[in-house]
């Protein structure tokens, strides 16, 4: 496909921001090219300059930012010096951009039709009528059902995935030569992400449109891109074809990125620690001299005090590293093939319900948390005065048992009720029906006074490190107040000693105590959040997506911390997440949730080796793996459409509307959660058929 005809050439691009506090060198000498019809991936953590690079290419840099030097040549024309009229033609006409947040990139007060037609008419290629016809065609091509009706809708009537399709339709409306997609799937669920990535791949193949895909997720990049550029600290540190770069990284930063993520296809039993690199990226207002990665690099040598150039090290490959340029090799990690399939030992108990079976199982130790048929329904406001009151079935009859000392993973798409279930367990919500017992005590409807002593045993870690810490409280107060509340310390001196101890446990220095949350990075804030949960010495922690807002390397650090803490304090976790690889990595058992119901429960290894429920199978196959060779060979189970609304749930099996093997029986009868193999429970009429 690549006929080596570059359409975009970026040379020594420098985009600086002139702020009051100094010059921020966000993009500092970036060069790369894109060939016609090629798919190029740009990877890097937040702050590496990848988004600013993309915005510079279409001159979308706002004051105080400026492109201070460099050349951006699009088919021989210099974009940097283009005048306003030609720039307008260039943007949208020849290059289109799709942004990360589909919620804000469409105008909420205009109908979809108008937004699509406007982009087409503005470039003078279509009449209004032709544009409208084309808009309908495009929406259909992007996989939107009933496109004729869809064009007359407003953006809020669409889900995130649908809006991203609309954005793609808009991007493709003028048949651009190049599409820049900035984290287009980051805000979406895995199954929807897989659909959008498929669509991008098809569009690339059908129209020959070149794509620059910007992402922090190497799996996503591996799925689509033929060539990869890795950015760190405003520079390109490595470049090469996807297969060889991902299989054999030649820059320590790429190496670290690859090894920080747990992988679905590789699992070393017993070893749970991930490889992480120390420290945080350098300050863009003051790049360090020498190699910018030196301070965090585990392989640094003396020569690294000097700034290395991006030099070719193999055909088609270049790296900015003294070690590999001199022929040094980076160690291979976790190179083993797939883990051996797990062999569950215990005998199957036929015909026993899940709840009864877990209660009877004495072999696994003490049941710490016992959830029986718990339901949470949220009444919605009436749409009309005489209308029926609608109800959102967030959690609709879930059985769950957690044993002392284990980690239970809870996975599912957004809206499946996993967060609500977590909040029911810590009793932030009161269940509508069912029973929750913690340590033998029924807490289903316990009032705050009864539950207060239990709070010391049962804690929660939250998703958003920016919202979960009170911005007006110092770390000292955040950690100290709970201690005083529960009378765990007698006086101020004891409290501050315990606060220092807690900070030490989560790997922060004692100086942190006097500071406010905004003075910390996302990863550090999450450590404070963990310390707060640990303050009252709990035995059970509900972790609600504790790492999904963090960069890859920080994710690995936090996972390592959580695993350490579990060993040290004999903690039990309920780990809620949407990232399957992470859940597999940390969990002993995994519960798969769909529309408020449990679809499958199994030991982690068994679930991934032999998923029995079609939903589980499709979730696993939708999760990208950071290896281009594997990504291309993988057989996939594609889910079509989006999860139905939890207001009008489908009859019978909830998954039947998207299930590839659904039969008549599935619409009539809800399959019970039954034990198919020892310890492996599934709610499907045809387990393992797919």
């Amino acid at each position, binding site marked *: 496909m690549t006929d080596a005809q570059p359409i975009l050439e970026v040379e020594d691009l420098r985009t*600086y921001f*002139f*702020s*009051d506090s*100094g*010059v921020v060198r966000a993009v500092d000498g970036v060069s790369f090219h894109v060939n016609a019809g090629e798919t190029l991936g740009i990877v890097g953590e937040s702050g590496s300059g990848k988004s600013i690079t993309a915005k510079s290419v279409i001159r979308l840099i706002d004051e*105080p930012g*400026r492109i*201070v*030097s460099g050349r951006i040549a699009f088919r021989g024309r210099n974009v940097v010096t283009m005048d306003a009229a030609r720039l307008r033609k260039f943007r949208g006409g020849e290059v289109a951009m799709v942004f990360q947040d589909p919620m804000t990139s469409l105008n909420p007060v205009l109908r979809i039709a108008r937004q699509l037609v406007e982009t087409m008419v503005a470039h003078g290629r279509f009449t209004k009528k032709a544009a409208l016809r084309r808009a309908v065609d495009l929406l259909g091509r992007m996989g939107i059902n009933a496109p004729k009706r869809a064009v007359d809708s407003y953006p809020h009537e669409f889900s995130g995935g649908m809006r991203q399709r609309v954005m793609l339709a808009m991007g493709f409306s003028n048949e651009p030569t190049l599409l820049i997609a900035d984290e287009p799937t980051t805000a979406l669920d895995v199954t929807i992400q897989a659909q959008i990535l498929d669509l991008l791949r098809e569009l690339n193949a059908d129209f020959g449109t070149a794509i620059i895909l910007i992402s922090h997720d190497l799996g996503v990049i591996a799925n689509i891109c033929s060539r990869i550029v890795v950015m760190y600290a405003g520079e390109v540190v490595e470049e090469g074809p996807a297969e060889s770069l991902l299989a054999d990284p030649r820059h320590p930063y790429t190496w670290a990125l690859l090894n920080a993520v747990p992988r679905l296809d590789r699992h070393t039993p017993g070893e749970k620690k991930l490889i992480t690199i120390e420290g945080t990226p350098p300050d863009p207002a003051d790049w360090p001299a020498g190699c910018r990665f030196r301070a965090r690099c585990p392989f640094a040598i003396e020569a690294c005090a000097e700034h290395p150039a991006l030099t070719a090290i193999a055909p088609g490959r270049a790296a900015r590293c003294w070690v590999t340029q001199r022929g040094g090799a980076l160690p291979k990690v976790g190179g083993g093939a797939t883990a051996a399939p797990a062999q569950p030992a215990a005998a199957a108990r036929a015909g026993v319900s899940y709840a009864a079976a877990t209660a009877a199982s004495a072999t696994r130790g003490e049941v710490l948390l016992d959830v029986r048929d718990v339901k949470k329904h949220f009444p919605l406001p009436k749409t009309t005065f005489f209308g029926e009151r609608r109800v959102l079935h967030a959690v609709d009859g879930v059985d769950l048992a957690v044993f002392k000392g284990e980690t239970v993973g809870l996975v599912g798409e957004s809206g499946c009720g996993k967060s609500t279930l977590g*909040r029911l367990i*810590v009793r*932030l919500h009161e269940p509508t029906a069912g029973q929750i017992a913690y340590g033998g005590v029924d807490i289903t409807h316990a009032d*705050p006074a009864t*539950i*207060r002593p239990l*709070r*010391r045993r*049962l*804690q*929660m870690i*939250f*998703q*958003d490190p920016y*919202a*979960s*810490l*009170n*911005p*007006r*409280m110092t770390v000292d107060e955040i950690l100290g*107040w*709970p201690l005083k*509340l*529960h009378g765990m310390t007698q006086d101020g001196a004891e409290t501050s000693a315990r606060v220092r101890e807690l900070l030490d446990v989560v790997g922060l220095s004692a100086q942190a105590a006097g500071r406010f949350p905004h003075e910390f990075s996302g990863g550090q804030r999450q450590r404070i*959040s963990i310390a*707060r949960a640990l*303050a*009252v010495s709990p035995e059970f922690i509900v972790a609600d997506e504790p790492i999904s807002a963090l960069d890859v390397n920080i994710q690995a650090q936090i996972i390592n911390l959580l695993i350490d803490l579990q060993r040290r304090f004999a903690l039990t976790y309920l780990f809620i997440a949407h990232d399957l690889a992470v859940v597999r990595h940390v969990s002993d058992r995994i519960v798969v949730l769909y529309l408020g119901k449990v679809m499958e429960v199994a030991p982690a290894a068994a679930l991934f080796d032999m998923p029995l429920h079609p939903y589980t199978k499709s979730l696993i196959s939708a999760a990208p793996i950071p290896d281009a060779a594997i990504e291309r060979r993988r057989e996939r189970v594609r889910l079509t459409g989006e999860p139905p609304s939890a207001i009008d749930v489908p009859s019978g099996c909830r998954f039947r509307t998207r299930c590839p093997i659904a039969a008549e029986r599935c619409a009539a009868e809800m399959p019970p959660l039954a034990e198919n193999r020892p310890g492996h429970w599934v709610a499907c009429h045809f387990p393992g058929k797919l």
Partner: protein
Amino acid sequence: MSAAAIETAAAEQASPRRRWLRRYGLPLAGGCVILFWFAAALLAPVMSSYNPDFVDVANRLQPPTARHLLGTDALGRDVLSRVLYGSRISLIAGFSVVLVGAVFGTVLGGIAAYARGRAEELLMRLTDLVLCFPPIILAMAIAAALGIGTTNTIIAMLVVWWPKYARLARSLVLVQRSQEYVEAAHVLGFGHAHILFRQVIPNAIGPLIVMVTLDLGNAILVFAGLSFLGLGVVPPTPEWGAMVAEGRELVQQWWVATFPGLAILSVVMGFNFVGDGIRDWLDPHARRR
């Protein structure tokens, strides 16, 4: 662009002093004016050379001279002394109305937003009820019913003053209560009163402070207005609004009404400038410019 050119680009952004002036100039000027009136209120006996109530009919309606810098009024009282003393009542009335109103409104609005459900419905409909009436006319009616006097006027103003704080506090607390740190506090076992007053309201306080500062000038203005209409202070208490009313018909003797009027103008603008400054300072988007 060469390295030197980048340096100049960074430098030409605006010289630091001009940038500083653009950002802090007006709030600073406003602060100086307010500081002056505070000093006047505290040091009125020292700063003025006459008793504000000293009647000297022989010297009535004197234009500004060296003896009476701002002239004398219809009863021969020194206008400068009366303006200086007048700041006491204006500042006291302004601060007491706004602070008491803000605290009361914030607590009610905060409880409404935090509790939701019936309590919220009840409290917010009550605020709506008060907001239904034109505030100044309602205050006038209450002041008239209670009888003339500084305290009564302040009470009348308070009745119409708190609802806007209840509204603002409710919306601010609504935003905060869905934050994860509030859930975290619940999970840690903190009580509702602690969460609302020690954790949530401190986070909602920024916009409330801005509103209070901007509102102080407004309250002083309304108080002066009520006095102007004869509902404020008992004569002969020196008060700016009442003084303007006394000079209303003395067109030839412009100084009688002008100087207290200028006093009102300066103090209201002072508070507005400071309020704007605080708002910009608390709002990171406005701050960057």
